[in-house]
């Protein structure tokens, strides 16, 4: 065979050529940036049309959009609200995106978030007396751990019996609502002197400190934003740099190739579900320690479901999820302003969010509406 091998100099030259980084193709750029961007624009336009159809007059529609902009990015206070709302969305979204990459369609972030949040509250008031430097991290970690364990139930069921995670996580969500209601009435957790289901308060040493209160005490943005940024970096590293992330992605893209490559499917499923649950649990923990201060029935407020949309909009990529989470946070903060200023129902925000997802899920529709935004695509040669 040796005569067939090219000489060393030639080999080195060819290897250098092969290892030159290719720039991302225009197709990637279109899919990752242009489609989501246009989807948002189209959704806002449709939102306006829906307002028109429900007999909202044009000036009010104008006022709504102004309020939406002002309330989300128009002032320091608006930015503070936007980012505060985005923290749990990004955290839970990262978990879901990681699951999607591993081929797991986890619908259970809501339940994992509730369980993790409640665990953080309990850890918060039972461990009071510790210095905050220990108390706060331990509280957050316990929230993440309980979220992970709750999600791992679905992972374990799938790995051992093949139970589909969509079904089992939906059921676990339902269980979590009632479990939360029941736990909140237990004397150990329920606040003294209250008959309604509400927990004791998280003591200050376990609270995520507000970081802008030196400017204005009403700015709610808290240190959870650093947790969020760290999680973005960690998930990025895990998915694209680490060995386990390689196995996650291979299992998600082609389970039978992962099997061929000797990856342990059951291990990957349980670990990916657990990691997703840890991030959702952390989302709940930051919410109770940074914003709410206690747990009450349904304190998750649908964040776990909105996070599914965030993960989809962000194309299951940590950076994409960060931006998608901030966008959804902005819609939420702006939506509240819209309700106050223009009297338009906040449900409209829900409709706009839903429309964004529909357009993301149907990229061809976006391409059809904005043909000039995209290069013409031919079929690949391989399909011929």
């Amino acid at each position: 065979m040796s005569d067939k091998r090219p000489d060393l100099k030639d080999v080195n030259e060819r290897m250098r050529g092969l290892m030159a980084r290719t720039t991302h193709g225009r197709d990637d750029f279109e899919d990752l940036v242009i489609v989501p961007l246009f989807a948002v624009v189209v959704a806002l336009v449709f939102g306006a049309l829906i307002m028109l159809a429900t007999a909202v007059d044009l000036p009010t529609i104008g006022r709504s959009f102004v309020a939406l902009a002002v309330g989300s990015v128009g002032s320091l206070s608006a930015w503070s609200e936007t980012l505060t709302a985005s923290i749990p969305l990004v955290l839970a979204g990262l978990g879901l995106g990681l699951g999607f990459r591993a081929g797991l369609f986890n619908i259970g972030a809501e339940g994992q978030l509730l369980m993790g949040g409640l665990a953080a509250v309990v850890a918060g008031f039972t461990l009071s007396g510790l210095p905050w430097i220990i108390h706060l991290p331990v509280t957050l970690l316990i929230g993440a751990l309980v979220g992970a364990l709750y999600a791992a139930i679905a992972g374990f069921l799938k790995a051992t019996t093949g139970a589909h995670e969509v079904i089992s996580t939906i059921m676990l969500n339902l269980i979590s609502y009632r479990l939360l209601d029941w736990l909140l009435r237990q004397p150990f957790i329920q606040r003294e002197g209250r008959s309604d289901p509400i927990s004791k308060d998280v003591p200050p040493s376990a609270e995520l400190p507000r970081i802008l209160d030196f400017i204005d005490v009403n700015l709610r943005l808290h240190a959870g934003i650093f947790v969020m940024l760290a999680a973005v970096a960690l998930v990025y590293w895990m998915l694209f740099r680490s060995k386990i992330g390689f196995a996650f992605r291979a299992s998600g893209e082609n389970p039978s190739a992962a099997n061929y490559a000797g990856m342990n499917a059951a291990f990957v499923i349980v670990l990916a579900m657990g990691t997703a649950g840890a991030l959702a649990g952390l989302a709940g923990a930051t919410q109770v320690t940074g914003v709410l201060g206690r747990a009450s029935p349904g304190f998750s407020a649908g964040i776990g479901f909105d996070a599914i949309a965030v993960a989809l909009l962000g194309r299951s990529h940590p950076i994409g999820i960060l931006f998608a989470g901030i966008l959804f946070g902005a819609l939420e903060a702006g939506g509240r302003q819209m309700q106050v200023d223009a009297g338009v129902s906040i449900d409209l925000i829900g409709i706009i969010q839903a429309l964004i997802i529909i357009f993301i899920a149907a990229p061809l529709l976006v391409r059809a509406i904005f043909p000039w935004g995209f290069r013409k695509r031919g079929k690949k040669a391989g399909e011929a």
Partner: protein
Amino acid sequence: MDVELRGLTKRFGSVVANDNVNLHIRAGEVLGLLGENGAGKSTMMNMLSGLYTPDEGEILIDGKPVKFDGPGDGIEAGIGMVHQHFMLVPVFTVAENVVLGVEPTGRLGSLDIKKARAQVEEINEKYRLHVPPDELIEELPVGIQQRVEILKVLFRSADVLILDEPTAVLTPQEVHEFFGIVETLKKAGKAIVFITHKLHEVLEISDRISVLRQGRITGEGDPKTLTEADLAEMMVGRPVSFTTAKNVAEPGRTMLEMDAVTMLDETDEMVLDHVSLTVRSGEVVGVAGVQGNGQTELVEAITGLERIASGHITFDGEDISYARVRERHRMGMAHIPEDRHKSGMVDSFTVAENMVLNSYYAPEYSKGWAIDWPKVHETAARYCVEFDVRTPSVFLPGGSLSGGNQQKMVVARELERETKLVIASQPTRGVDVGSIEYIHERLIASRDEGDGVLIVSSELDEIMGLSDRIYVMYDGKIVAEFDNTDGKADRNAVGLAMAGSYEGEAA
């Protein structure tokens, strides 16, 4: 009926799939159409069946131009396709399958199965197809199922039959019978297009041959004057050698030993029936057999993808009967899987990622919990150069490579490591002639470096050409063993064993 393609061109974006193709299909004649994967055969056939509309050029039937606008237009005009993958309902009878979609109906639109049966019987007689009209499809062997497909297009009164890789699923004996049917159809005045990549078959059966390469007709000729080497050169664009040069094997110690291994499928059906075989270092052992006789399961048992029910598997002296896939891989077992798309690679992963698909965890590619990516990229680039995997960059998705290059990527990954045993399952399926030659050379090179090599293939030529020893599998059992030193095994006897009717001494 005569069909003429005149200057047909079809583009997909910037890719020209068919470029000014001229082809004449005549009644009472077999036209052999050769071409590698991606040469444009499918595109051309899809234009004939009406699925694609040509960008330029025209299709003439008996001299008159026709225009096809949708699938179904082709068969209406009398052009019938027999696909490589059968489109039959397994739980329907032959007659029901044949009439499906064009059922003869009685009053009130009820299905007239008697009439259907009679019509099927008539065609059956006329072309001597010998298909039992009342049998369920699932109970018929593959060769008969294929005749049902032919019956289907004849029932729809096709005068031109396009047969897409019809012999891929047949035993040598079935191929022989199949050629008999083609002769009958030809005598009855049908025009036949026989698409294949098997050179000796096209020489045997065709009246004329056309070769397609990169969307163009690159050669036409008379099978009486052409040789296999001529055809291969037309297909690939350079001279190709067929026989892999190799020395006589020098078998050493036993690398793989299977002792009465059985495996059950999910319905407790025995899919491996007390299989015993050995592979020694420095020899190539071939496993011949018609697809679906337990070869897939044999490979799964050896590589650890499926659990065996009983028996023992020993690899270089160690019992690996129940060892994990990764354990076997670590011990030096290479596995070229039978279907690279299904399990051998991840299409969306980069070439570099695919190159370490099953060794990414190994210390040489690790930095703690992370993968040492620069090292991976360097290794991948080296493998690409060593194995002539043609890609502009190791950062491109593996799925963007051509079939031959994808397979070379998989082969490079498996053979470039330190290995002791190579399990190669259908190592050249769907690969162009040029790459086949190369992959065969590398497998022989592995043997000469002292590896045990086990090749499982449904291409008898491949088995005969590479193996030093041949086992034949039939119905989950090893039914025969042949010594093939210097290619001395009797091809006919191997073929008979593949059909389950070999009377010689069984292994």
